């Protein structure tokens, strides 16, 4: 299978047009295999990606570049019950989630 996603690179362009990730604490809901996470996490101070799919999270962890390991974390969770204290994040990304 030779699928390529976002061949025109619009998603990354619009994401950065709509949000400044610089030194932000970011929560991504529905991170899946971390494809979107890898497009902004380098700029953040901390990124947490959550998804109910454990297999997808394993891929996200494996494919996370070495230079992002210290600032990116992945966890199995659902948006309806977030395992975080109130006011933990500056920015949330609801990614392909509904």
């Amino acid at each position, binding site marked *: 299978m030779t*699928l390529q996603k*976002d061949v025109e690179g*619009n998603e990354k362009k619009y994401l950065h047009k709509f949000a400044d990730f610089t030194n932000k604490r970011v929560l991504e809901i529905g991170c899946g295999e971390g494809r979107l996470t890898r497009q902004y996490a380098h700029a953040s101070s901390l990124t947490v990606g959550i998804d109910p799919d454990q297999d997808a999270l394993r891929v996200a962890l494996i494919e996370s570049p070495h230079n992002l390991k210290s600032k990116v974390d992945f966890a199995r969770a659902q948006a309806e019950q977030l395992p975080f204290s109130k006011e933990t994040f500056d920015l949330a990304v609801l990614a*392909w*989630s509904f």
Partner: protein
Amino acid sequence: MVHALSEIRRVLIPDGILIDLRPMLDRWHVEVVSARETNVIGRVNDFEVGLADDTTANHAMAQAELHGWFIREREEFFPFVYSWDTPTEMEEWLAEEWNDFIGWDEDSKRVARSAWAMADGDARVQLRMKMLIARWRKVTGIRHDPFSSPGRNKSDS
């Protein structure tokens, strides 16, 4: 979904930002593309389940705005393109991953196979999706939260 938005609001700082990024069904175009040219050769069909999902998501965001949890600051649509080497690969992928949401009818598949076969050697087949991106800001001084526990009034004590 409205409950999820309530949870997201809880974990965001005051004035925190929520980015809503998702595909919107719109009978996406199928294209055959080579270095030399792009041909739009048809569209996929939207199924009720997928359309209902879009409606539900839109409704949830509208409810969040109505409750005074978030205010919408900006919204745009942009194209997101999936690309495969061959129409067969696209057909297999859609059948495996998105068969609940969109359909590709046999006539359109035939047209795509034919257009791809007649095109240049580097031709690929693409699905041009419509994406929504919206930026919402958390509002402090909430008007109404249906998920919060009802507190006791002073008059109760």
